[in-house]
């Protein structure tokens, strides 16, 4: 078997005296969609933040054979690790076009930027219609599309999405999840999906890790976890 694209081992993070992660380990092979599920405060967001250099962590995390931890966030992005943060974090006063341009901040190849933009519009045609609109005035679902589009502009090989379904109308959730799968299938981008909506996440992923108070408590192929009675009771609504 080829070495995993991302290998995380014994990841630990504390916010002051609060320990958010106490030894999280997992790995993801190139081309997979893997999901990380867990309830409020389990440490899902913290895991993603640690990997993209937004919070300091100990342990090891190797991306494509090279270490991630201790590197500044902007370098990590440059290595092909994209992060669609919790709460979307679009640049509210910038237009949709400017948000996408900022997504391509590190890309000096204009032709590729244009191509990427077209691909984003193909995934989310609404963004093209709203190019001149300021991002803060988009609906929640549209902001999520923009946040994903912005991350794709950075040419990621690996994309981490933090609760893309949060606060979004069910109809748009379906669209967004279809496009997440398309991003994986068509562009070959490996995906780590964080969700509280475990049903949805297990449906689109091939493997899953369950996080509880800063530890991995369960892991396995998604279909198996969907059938697991313990998981059913806690996360899948009976």
């Amino acid at each position, binding site marked *: 078997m080829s070495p995993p694209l991302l290998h995380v081992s014994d990841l630990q993070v504390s916010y002051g005296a609060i320990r958010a992660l106490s030894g999280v380990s997992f790995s993801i092979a190139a081309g997979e969609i893997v999901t990380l599920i867990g309830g409020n405060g389990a440490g899902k967001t913290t895991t993603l933040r640690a990997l*993209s*250099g*937004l919070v300091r962590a100990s342990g090891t995390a190797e991306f494509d054979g090279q270490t991630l931890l201790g590197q*500044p*966030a*902007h370098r990590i*992005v*440059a290595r092909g690790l*994209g*992060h669609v*943060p919790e*709460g979307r*974090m*679009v*640049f*509210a*006063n*910038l237009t949709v076009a*400017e948000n996408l*341009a*900022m*997504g391509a*901040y*590190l890309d000096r190849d204009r032709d590729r930027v244009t191509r990427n933009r077209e691909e984003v519009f193909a995934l989310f045609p609404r963004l093209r219609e709203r190019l001149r609109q300021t991002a803060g005035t988009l609906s929640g679902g549209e902001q999520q599309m923009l946040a994903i589009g*912005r*991350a794709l*502009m*950075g040419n990621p090989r690996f994309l981490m999405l933090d609760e893309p379904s949060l606060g979004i109308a069910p109809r748009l959730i379906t669209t967004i999840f279809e496009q997440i799968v398309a991003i994986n299938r068509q562009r070959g981008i490996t995906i780590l999906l964080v969700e509280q909506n475990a049903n949805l996440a297990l449906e689109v992923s091939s493997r899953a890790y369950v996080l509880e108070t800063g530890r991995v408590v369960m892991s396995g192929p998604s279909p198996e976890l969907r059938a697991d009675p313990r998981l059913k009771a806690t996360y899948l609504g009976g």
Partner: protein
Amino acid sequence: MSEFLQQLLNGLSLGAIYALIALGYTMVYGVLRFINFAHADLFMVGAFLGYFGGRLVPSGTLVGGLGVLALAMAGCAVLGIVIERLAYRPLRGAPTLNVLITAIGVSLLLEYSGQLVLGAAPRTFPDLFPAGRFNLGPVVVSTNQLVVIGVAVLLMVGLELIVHRTRIGTAMRAVALNPRAAQLVGINNDVVISFTFGLGSALAGAGGILYALNYPSIDPLMGVMPGLKAFVAAVLGGIGNIPGAALGGLLIGVVETYVGGSAWSTYKDAIAFAVLILVLLLRPAGLLGRVTVEKV
């Protein structure tokens, strides 16, 4: 009527200078969320760079004057970047109060080392630009006023273009809106912050020269009062808002000039603060500031 127009012109040329300084306060606030109290002293450094630079060029020429202006702006930009690097960057992530106190420390350092090195006595600022005055209808215009307004307008238009049309300018707005998201698109926030300090300090340096052209007595404490008023202008316009800072500066300049020419002229320095109190009571976010609820 002619008195009214004359005062308007005088007020606008004073206000343009406040505006230039206010822009620096507001831009730095935008990216770092703190008031750089040392900013006013870069205004003073700009004036002194103009004073010494003026000896290197023939006096009273447009080219010489603009050359000195460019030199002072470059010098202040470098100093601003160095101050940020040495004094503020080590405090990244520290409580704002710590950074504010450090800024006051840097300000005092600049003022009193200025007094130590240059002496506390005022010096007469040279005629950098061709001197002259002419009548425009009922209004007397000095060439220095033209220089002030012309340079200030050019700099503000230039700033507008940088902030809205360039990659680094857009990155500046992105960092101001959401520094974490900015990192996630690959922006090196430190570079953007340095750039912001450089840009703001260059504008303050230009402001120092323009001010000294019209009030040609300079000393190491000269930045204090204009700096304070420019700070008020920035808050008045809505701190963090770039057009707001420009508008606030012009307003303070005009109001101050009218009050200075009236029976209440002794209160001319207090008026900026009265305006501030009034505006904050009526519009707490400033004239162009929006009351924003920050989404986390």
